[in-house]
């Protein structure tokens, strides 16, 4: 079992711990609904140290990452990040991830905990034809996320890095509660917020400082349970549920990530063909209109026939209804289409609705 460097912080707070892909992680503290609402209304602090990190350095770093990913890495200046993927030659997913440019010829990949070893092996294997060095840095980095409308107000007193002008997907190095860290305006909740990466061996001081500083603003510690309900409301993908090596980027409605003009990359030919000729199925968001909660793997019916299975499904605590994602034949993926979700012995009615299910109100200060 692996433990993050914030483990004692979770124990002190009485967190309910679970095993998550070999990591001992907090599932919840006060409860998933309380935590979910805290992030939407105030702020929440997450230990996300289980995520994987990979350094790519060297002369061919840019060319290498352009080959491995569908987004245009050349758009990244130092201290900028983008959402992207490691794609297979079939245009499907090895993983989704963030790529940060730390410096010319130095990049940081942040990948899912569930795929950390697999992704590193993939990256290292493909590196042989390029003049690059790849390093698995997952054990070196700890990571926190502070998310919610009060996040900036809470974090600013703890760092000399100016946060007000930091645009979405931008980053800066500086001290947080005295520890050297990379702060980025990124997150997995649909709220404004920051992620903090540090190689400090005692990052617990950052955790404590944020909870103390944020007390009057109502910050709460948040577990993996609410992390999942928050990201689903915001229609953020989860590898293993919504995307995997059988789903293409076009089917997954992630065409916006692909920059075909940037040049060749693994899967480009198939994805271009799918974009031009169409696909037979597409991911769609739905809400349950009857009574019940949709969950992963529940069968989905259209016109009486089973056509798919729920990818992600839950009760959404802010929206107060059950929502989910499912791949549907393109005709059935149209908004308003009535489908049914098989919940034990019942076929419960549901409807295809627009996504994201939740979108935060934009404030003038944001880029």
């Amino acid at each position, binding site marked *: 079992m692996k433990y993050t460097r914030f483990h004692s912080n979770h124990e002190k707070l009485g967190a*309910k711990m679970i095993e998550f892909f070999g990591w001992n992680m907090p*599932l*919840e503290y006060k*409860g*998933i*609904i*309380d935590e979910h609402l805290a992030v939407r209304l105030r702020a929440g602090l997450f230990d996300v140290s289980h995520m994987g990190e990979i350094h790519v350095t060297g002369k061919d770093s840019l060319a290498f990452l352009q080959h491995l990913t569908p987004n245009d890495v050349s758009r990244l200046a130092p201290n900028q990040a983008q959402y992207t993927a490691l794609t297979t030659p079939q245009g499907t997913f090895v993983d989704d991830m963030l790529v940060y440019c730390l410096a010319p010829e130095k990049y940081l990949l942040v990948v899912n905990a569930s795929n950390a070893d697999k992704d590193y092996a993939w990256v290292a294997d493909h590196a042989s034809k390029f003049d690059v060095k790849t390093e698995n840095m997952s054990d070196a980095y700890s990571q926190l996320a502070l998310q919610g409308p009060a996040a900036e107000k809470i974090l600013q007193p703890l760092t000399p890095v100016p946060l007000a002008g930091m645009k979405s997907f931008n980053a800066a190095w500086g001290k947080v509660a005295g520890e050297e860290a990379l702060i980025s305006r990124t997150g997995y909740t649909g709220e404004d917020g920051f992620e903090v990466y540090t190689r400090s061996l005692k990052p617990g001081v950052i955790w404590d400082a944020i909870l103390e500083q944020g007390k009057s603003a109502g910050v709460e510690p948040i577990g993996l*349970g609410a992390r999942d*309900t928050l990201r689903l409301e915001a229609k953020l993908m989860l590898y293993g549920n919504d995307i995997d090596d059988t789903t293409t980027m076009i089917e997954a409605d992630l065409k916006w990530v692909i920059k075909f003009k940037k040049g060749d990359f693994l899967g480009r030919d198939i994805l271009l063909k799918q974009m031009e000729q169409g696909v037979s199925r597409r991911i769609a968001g739905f809400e349950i209109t009857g*009574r*019940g*909660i949709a*969950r992963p793997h529940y069968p989905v019916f259209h016109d009486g026939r089973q056509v798919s299975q729920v990818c992600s499904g*839950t*009760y959404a*605590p802010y929206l107060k209804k059950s929502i989910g994602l499912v791949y549907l034949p393109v005709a059935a993926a149209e908004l308003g289409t009535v489908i049914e979700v098989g919940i*034990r012995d019942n076929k419960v009615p549901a409807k295809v609705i627009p996504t994201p299910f939740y979108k935060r109100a934009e404030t003038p200060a944001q880029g």
Partner: protein
Amino acid sequence: MVPNNFRYTKTHEWVQLTGDEALMGITDYAQNHLGDVVYIELPVVGAKLAAHQVIGNIESVKAVSEIYAPLAGEVAAVNEGLNNSPELVNQDPHGKGWIVRFKAAGKAEFEGLMNAVEYEKYLEGLDK
């Protein structure tokens, strides 16, 4: 300490018997393990129950859990309030969070279930 006059099942239901009228729900241990309850599937009034049979489901954000009949009998009433306020199960599992009232088939089965002391001991064994 759990209520003294209730009996308990290994699957964490409690049952209270007054004459042949029984009231059941899930225990505080069960609601704590489940987390926030967001949905309950209740049996229909008039349904016949067999002891240890699945009579409904109780869902938290993350999981579905089966509810088992603690005793044989026939459903007389269900707690309709739980449809709009499932959180009552978390807030007051032994009181306002009751789930089913039913006519019990016999008293002997009730005596056979764990009493409060035995249930507390059973819980200690689980958390080890």
